[in-house]
Each structure stands twice: as C-alpha cells, then as structure tokens.
C-alpha cells in the first residue's frame, strides 16, 4: 500500500512478542496485538469445551432413549454448548481475535483508540466466562441458550448466574465495538479515505454498529429476566398480567442482529483472503462495503422471524418475513463479488484460500436454507426442528469457524512470525469440510422430516441420520484438532516468516513478522488502493484524476 518496504527489526527494536516478556507484562499490556492473542487462546479454550460438549450431545443422540446420560443432563449439555458457543466463542471470535490483532495494522495505526478499554474488555470477558462456567456448580442451566420465559423464570439451577454472565459478556462486546468505530474514524493512516479502507475494516465497522446498538437491549432483557426470577416483577409472567412472548421480542431484538455480529466479520476475512490469493483487485469494492453496512442495518428490522409460530399476528408475520428476504440481496452480492474476484485471477490454493473456498460453499448452503425459514409457510413446518439447527450450524459453526480458520492461517505468520506445515493444514481443512457436511447435511433431512430440536429421545425412524451425524462430528473434531495441532507445532520452530509471505497489499504486511510493539517503524502513508495488484500500482490520486 505504501511505497517503501520496511525491513524487520532494522532499527533493532524487538518485536512485540519478545519485548517485555513475562506473565505480568502480558496481563497488563495495552498492546492490541497481545490482547488479540490472549483472546485467541481464551476463545480456543472455550471452543474446545463447547466442542467437547457437542461431541457428548452427538454421542447421546447415537441411539434413541438414554445412551450415555439422563434427560436432565442432556438439557444442561446443549444449553451450555449453545451459550458457550454463542456468547464465549463466536461473538468474540473474529472481532476480538483477528479484529484486535489486525484492524489497527490494516489502518496503519499504532493501536486502537482506547487501548485500556480494550484490555478492560478482555478482563470483562474473563469475568463473564468465569461466571458462565460457575453455573456448573450451581446445578447447571437447562433453559436453552434462548432463555425463553416462562420456563426460564420457573426452572431452578444457575439461570440467574448464566444470564448475568451473558450480561457481563455483552459489555466486553460493546467495548470492542466502541473501540473499532472510534479507531476507524480517528486513527486511519494519512491519506486513507473511506474507500481506501481495506474491506476487513468495513466489515468490522458494520459489526461494531450492531454491537453498540443491539447489545444494550440484550443487557436490559437479561436484567428483566433476573428481576422476574428474583422479584416476580410480572412483566413476563402471564399469571401476573405479563406477557411471556414479549420476552421473545426483547431477546431477538438483540439476538437476530447478533447473528450478523457472527457473519459480518467472517465476510470481512473473506474480502482480504480472496483478493490476496487471487492476486487480483477485489471485485466491486463499494458494493461489498455498502452491503456490509446494509446487512448491519437491515438486520435490525427482521427479528420476529424467530416467532412466526409464537402466536404473532398475520400482519406482523408478513412484514417480518418480507423484510427478512431483503438481507439475502447484500449477501448474494458479496458471494458473487468474491467469485468474480477469483475470475481471471492467479489463484494460489494456499491454506487460507482453501478455507475461503470452503466458506463460499458452506455459506451458500447455510444462507439459502435461511430462505426456507424466512418464508412463512415453510417456516411453520421447519421451526424448531433440526432443520433450523442445521441452518445455524452452517452459518455459525460452518461459515464463521471456517472464516476464523482462514483468517488465522492468513495472519498466523504475522502473529507469531512462523509458517505452519502446509500439507498438514491442507489435510485438516479437507477433514473439516468432509466432517462438517457429514455432521450437518443429515440434520437438514431429519429436520424436514419432523425431528424436533432439543430432543433427548427420538423415534426410531430418525436413527440412521443421527448415526451419520454423530460419525460426521468425529471426523470434524479430528480435523479441528489437527488444524490446532499444526498451528501449535509451528510455534516450536524459530521465527521464519518473512514480513509479506502472501504478497498482500495491505499495511500489515509492511510491518515486521511479528511487528514491533507500536506496529510500524514509520507511520505508513496510504498512496495506493489496498487491492491494487498491478505490476506498477497507480497512486489513488492519479487514478481519481484520470477518472474525471
């Protein structure tokens, strides 16, 4: 992006990993890169916990009736799986790991706007995580991650604690979002206008809008739920004149936009990885940028599509269904733009690109199955069946996890200054793709055949598909563990990564691998478009002149 290549450590500054070693220095750091890494390992830990819970769930579902645990335990298991995966894994995953690590680098900034708030967000995350895990000691939570009233106000166990944990985790998410918006506005490198922002930044920015606007409503919803449990304030209790379905409005006003907190960052990663490995300018920069914002804003208008069968009125149902469909348009635009980016490029099938291609395929399925659910009459049949479970695993577990892995493999050399074993990582990627589809494709079929979700016991007729799904989950787990092991193994080598291993054009590749604490030896200046892959890039200023 800038003219000069800064060689690593030319001035003799140690990189951010080597400087000020020691646990205490890490725990008190305000360096966005270190915070990103601490998020990485925290989230990975919870992903493993959540994933093991998923394996346990799948094992229980191997046979009808009791296989390895009781109904009560099963209900606690899927609730904890859902809550951990959403609140502790996927919402922080890409923004807090890759966003924290890469966003200031991509902007050519020294840090995020509020570094100490950034560290606070990590601590808040840890507190929330500790609270969530502590519910295990309080007897577990058996409400499902959606906490629907009146079940959640009447059941025992650690519901209040889990709800407060989600409340606390909300703040962590708000802090991150707030930081990203302020950073994008105020800390861009000289010369970097809005349309020279790398698209990753646009994606993070749109995500942050949702984090800021929606998360507080989740906060107040959860507080109301706790109040209902402790004080019986009555708002969700039909016997006291309240309305249990009102809770669902409150919950989904946050949680639908929240699903775009999960996918927009994934799309943001795609917009970096695909041009880099196609060695070609991103196709339709503005369309992708505006689609991100459009998805973020439209996402606020459709929440009640989760409630089509909850006794909603005909009109309300029709309006919410109608609006839901509009989100498919910006999503479609993005998918086609990415494919067009690959068209006539020079496609290098390195590991991040493989993950990106897998993402495209899996997101196509995940997104299009959303249309079954957005359409009124088919949703009536499919609501709360395994079809929905499969839909959201395709978009959350599939798309987001693949994008996280793509981004991780993409920026890994930057993070740790080391290259991983390409062959092993490719095998892992293949296993994940096969395992993922083997796990979740059968779930579409059993769902449309009527298998309800959150069922510990099921009718014999569904067993074949449950068995297939369970076996798939083992392949998937094997792939994920292999991917993790490959990355970890690379850490035992000396640092061998060059500053720009993939020939990327964005600023982070001008910093060292790994970068120094303040990122750049010299503040970079934005002269070329971040996606100009020509042999002789044309400065933006000239390009604009010739356009007139």
């Amino acid at each position: 992006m800038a003219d000069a290549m800064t060689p690593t450590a030319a001035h003799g500054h140690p990189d951010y990993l080597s400087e000020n070693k020691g646990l205490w220095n890490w725990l008190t750091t305000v360096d966005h890169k270190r915070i990103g890494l601490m998020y990485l390992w925290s989230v990975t830990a919870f992903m493993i916990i959540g994933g093991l819970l998923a394996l346990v769930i799948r094992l229980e579902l191997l046979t009808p009736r009791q296989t390895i645990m009781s109904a009560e335990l099963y209900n606690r298991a899927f609730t904890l799986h859902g809550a951990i995966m959403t609140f502790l894994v996927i919402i922080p995953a890409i923004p807090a790991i890759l966003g924290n690590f890469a966003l200031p680098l991509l902007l050519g900034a020294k840090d995020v706007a509020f570094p100490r708030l950034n560290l606070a967000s990590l601590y808040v995350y840890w507190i929330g995580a500790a609270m969530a895990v502590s519910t295990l000691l309080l007897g577990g939570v058996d409400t499902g991650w959606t906490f629907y009233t009146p079940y959640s106000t009447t059941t025992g166990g650690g519901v209040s604690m889990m709800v407060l944990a989600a409340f606390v985790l909300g703040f962590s998410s708000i802090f991150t979002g707030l930081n990203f918006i302020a950073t994008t506005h105020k800390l861009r490198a000289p010369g970097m206008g809005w349309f020279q922002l790398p698209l990753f930044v646009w994606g993070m920015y749109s995500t942050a809008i949702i984090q800021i606007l929606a998360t507080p409503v989740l906060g107040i919803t959860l507080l109301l739920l706790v109040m209902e449990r402790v004080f019986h304030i009555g708002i969700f209790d039909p016997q006291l004149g309240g309305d249990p379905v009102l809770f669902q409005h409150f919950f989904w006003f946050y949680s639908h936009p929240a699903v775009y907190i999960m996918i927009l960052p994934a799309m943001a990663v795609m917009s970096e990885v695909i041009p880099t490995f196609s060695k070609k300018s991103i196709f339709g920069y503005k369309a992708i940028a505006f689609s991100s914002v459009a998805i973020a804003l439209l996402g606020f208008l459709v929440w009640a599509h989760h409630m089509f069968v909850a006794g909603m009125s005909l009109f309300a149902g029709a309006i919410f269904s109608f609006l839901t469909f509009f989100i498919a348009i910006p999503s479609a635009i993005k998918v086609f733009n990415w494919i067009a980016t690959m068209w006539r490029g020079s496609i290098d099938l390195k590991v991040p690109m493989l993950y990106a291609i897998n993402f495209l395929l899996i997101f196509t399925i995940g997104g299009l199955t959303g249309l079954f659910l957005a359409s009124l009459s088919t949703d009536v049949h499919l609501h709360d069946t395994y079809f929905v479970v499969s839909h959201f695993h395709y978009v959350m577990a599939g798309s987001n996890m693949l994008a996280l892995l793509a981004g991780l493999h993409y920026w890994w050399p930057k993070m740790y200054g080391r290259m991983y074993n390409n062959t092993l990582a490719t095998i892992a990627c293949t296993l994940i793709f096969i395992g993922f589809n083997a796990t979740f494709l059968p779930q579409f079929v059993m769902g449309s055949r009527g298998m309800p979700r959150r069922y510990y016991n099921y009718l014999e007729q569904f067993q074949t598909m449950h068995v297939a799904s369970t076996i798939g989950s083992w392949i998937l787990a094997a792939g994920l563990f292999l991917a993790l092991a490959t990355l970890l193994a690379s850490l035992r080598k000396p640092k061998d990564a060059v500053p720009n291993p993939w020939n990327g054009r964005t600023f982070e590749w001008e910093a060292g691998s790994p970068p120094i604490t303040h990122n750049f030896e010299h503040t970079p200046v934005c002269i070329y478009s971040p996606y100009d892959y020509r042999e002789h890039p044309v400065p933006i200023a000239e390009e604009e002149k010739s356009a007139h």
Partner: protein
Amino acid sequence: MNWFRDFLLPKSAASNTGDVDGLFMFITWLTVFFFFFNGGLIWYAVRKWRRRSNDDITPHITHDTKLEIIWSVIPLIVVMFIFFWGFRGYVRAWVVPNDALEIVVTGKKWVWEFEYPDGSRSLNDLHVPLNKPVKLVMHSEDVIHSFFVPAFRIKRDVIPGRYTELWFTATEPGVHQVYCTEYCGKGHSDMLARIFADTPEQYEVFLREGDEQVRKMPLKELGKLVYENKGCATCHSIDGTRGQGPSLKAIYGQQITDAAGKSHTIDANYIRESILNPQASVVAGYEPIMPTFQGLLREREILGMIEYIKSLQ
C-alpha cells in the same frame, strides 16, 4: 423426482400441504442449483486460473456495474417470488373455516390433553374425522409448548394465559405423530401425542364408545375419570361432605326420600335415571339444579359411574 420429495418430507396427510411442499421443493432446488452453480464457477476458476508462477499478471478489474445490477436484481426477484408463495400458504393456514369442529387442547408438562365438544377428554390421543376441518384451540397450564404435526405441516405455540388456534383437514386415514417443539424441560422429548384420522365408521365407534384408551379401561376407573372430568366433582364430594349436591360417598344401596315424599333405593337404575333425567326425583333438601347428562355420557361411562359409586363405601 417424487422420490426426492418423499425422502425430504414426511408423507403429506392434510389438505393444505401442497402449497408448503411445492415451495419447499422449489427452495430446495434453488439451493441445490446455487450450490452447484457457485461450486462450478469456483471449480472452473481454480482449474483455469491456478497460479503458475509468482509473477503471474492478472487484469485489473475493479467492478462491472451492469453485472452487479444483474446479480442483485435476480435474487431480488427470486426472493419476492418466494415471499408471496410462502405468504399465500400462511394465509390459507391462518383462516379457519367456519364449520370446523372445535377441540380444546391443553398442554402441560408433559402431556397433551384434548377436550371434545361433548365434554369428553383424552390424554395424548386425539380422534378426528377424516376430511372434515378441525380447529384446535390451545392453551398451556405452565410453560410454552408447541403443537407440531409434521404430516400436516402445521405448528403453533401453546402459551399460558392466552389461547392460540390451529386448524387442519386430515386427508389420510391412520395415525399421525404429534410432537412438542417448544422446549419445556425434562420431558420435552417425550411430550408426544397421536392424531387418529378416523374413517366415518371408526369415528362412529369413537363417538359411541370413546377411544381405545377408554374402551380398555376397567369400569370403576372409567367412572372415576368421568367423575373428575365431567364436572360431577364440582357438586358432589366423595368424602361425605355436602356440596351443591349430596355426597356420593356410601350412598349405594341406601334409602332416600325425594322432594315429593317418595322414597327410593339407590341402585343402578336410580343412578342412571339421576344422571340422565335428574329432575325426575330430586333428593329432599336440594335444589333441582343438576343438569341432565343425556347425550354427554356414553353408555359405558354411565356403567362406569355406577361401578364407581358402588366402590365408594
């Protein structure tokens, strides 16, 4: 391609499913198409433009407005089409025919209770006549449940403090599975029910003698069920205390005097008459307020009642 539909969806057994199935298959094919379309494009691109050397030169293409408009407008048309199709099916499922048979459904942890227009009730088994619209008026006694019949493609939440409705016309005779699809706790996955879509003959039998559950029940138990479910309990106690009506405890074989001064022995015939034609002899000291149960109790239920009263010694 019918095998594919039959693989994905349970066999349809109600009148309104055609719309849903058609749309379902349409979106299925759309998904399959786009999966292979996108996959094909990617595959082609990767085959054709795989990186040969690090100095590959690529064209500098930033956008193509015409193309981008095309691939925004086509999905827009497609989704609007889907919306209207889905909306049509939803409206059809929404508007209940006036002549529908009304059945009141109560969901509670973790059973379904059905109440027929004649006041008889059953647990987890619902009998409906074939080819007649049936309307379910549903409510819950505790948490939210959801009534789901895959073969009819219908589902609606069952909510405490409020009634919701659902209707269908069964077109396939036989037994259809009902699930609870709103998570409601420990017994959620066992909160199942069955809908028996009866041919006219079967339905006749059901109306006359009750469902299988009732037909198999010992008389005494059936009597107890009737006592609890048909409202006897609101006026008659079984522990000897006086209510709006005399207690039923230990009355069998007793002598009583009615308001007209005639005396009767309480035997099977007397009980039968008291139920079917209560005003024929009103027990002294009571108002003649007992309603007749003519037509509301089946013959076997009356026999059960007699046995039950006999047992209350």
